């Protein structure tokens, strides 16, 4: 058996997406109030969900590679374009700080009946059109300070991948200890 299977049809998309949507909704991540509270460090739900998912999936990929079932070079590993990656991240972050969502969570918010989530999604479509309109002049910025193709943190720092995963697990435990009295600031009430 060779993994990954390379199953990229509509049914694969629907199944993976449905799992993603169910988990984000039941995790409380379709709630703009909670997402903004996370950015103000008043709610650790979003941090816990996201970091735990990264460490679990990252460890799974590591174990599959160790067992010889999958090569990390066979899965998509994005390449850093330092300024574009950082600036794009900052714009998506500012979008969440102002509007309460990022691209994925706006779909989850909209699915729960939040009209602001639907409007946020339509705003994104317009944002893509604006980007396409000025794509040519900003092309140099988009490709600036490119890192090595598909670079990973273990290669960047020259330490083993398991150690990076262990450090992240330690950070999750540390944040959990500091927020042990409750995930959310009691002054913040976000109706799910």
């Amino acid at each position: 058996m060779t993994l990954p299977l390379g199953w990229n049809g509509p049914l694969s998309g629907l199944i993976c997406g449905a799992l993603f949507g169910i988990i984000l909704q039941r995790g409380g991540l379709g709630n703009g109030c909670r997402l903004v509270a996370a950015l103000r460090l008043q709610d650790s739900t979003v941090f816990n969900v996201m970091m735990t998912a990264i460490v679990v999936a990252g460890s799974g990929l590591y174990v599959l590679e160790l067992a010889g079932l999958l090569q990390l070079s066979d899965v998509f590993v994005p390449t850093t374009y330092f300024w574009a990656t950082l600036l794009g991240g900052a714009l998506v972050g500012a979008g969440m700080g102002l509007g309460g969502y990022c691209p994925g969570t706006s779909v989850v918010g909209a699915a729960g009946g939040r009209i602001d989530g639907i409007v946020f999604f339509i705003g994104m479509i317009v944002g893509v059109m604006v980007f396409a309109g000025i794509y040519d002049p900003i092309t140099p910025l988009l490709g600036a300070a490119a890192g090595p193709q598909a670079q990973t943190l273990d290669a960047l720092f020259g330490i083993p991948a398991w150690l990076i995963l262990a450090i992240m697990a330690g950070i999750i435990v540390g944040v959990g200890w500091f927020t042990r009295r409750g995930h959310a600031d009691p002054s913040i009430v976000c109706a799910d």
Partner: protein
Amino acid sequence: MKQRPIWNSYVAGVALGFALLLTFVLTAHGLGASGAPTAIAAVVSNAVAPAATQSNDYLGWMVAEGADPLNSWIVWEVIGVLLGALAAAWWSGHLRLRVEGPPRITNGGRLALAAGAGLLSGFGARVSAGCTSGLGLSGSATLATAGFVFLIGFFGAGMITGLLTRRMWR
């Protein structure tokens, strides 16, 4: 209808980690989101201004020679997200049409804010060629440097904007 509380955040995180791992094993890539508004932008733009869209260096290839960007894995995945979240919201008693946002501003103001913030987000996700799902979550799970650079920019700017606008949320 009885409202069910959200899952414990670590339970949700472990579940999301396994769903993401399954996606990697099945498709060779992770979960995403911003590819869907990109595909819709290409199709809408091509319907309104075909000549300009087909000659555009960013959107042109997506609609070249009758290609349909809506029939792509990422669009099916986002339809899956919509259906999955709809079912989960209904099952947990949270499905209700309403406008949410900062308590201090009117519904019209909230929608205007959501539209402007969505524009920033959609534009930004094209600059970084991925969003919180595709780069921040899926990229970081492969330990890609790009995923963590994205998250630094995301949380840095997000925290600054969140703190600057905190009065609106009181």
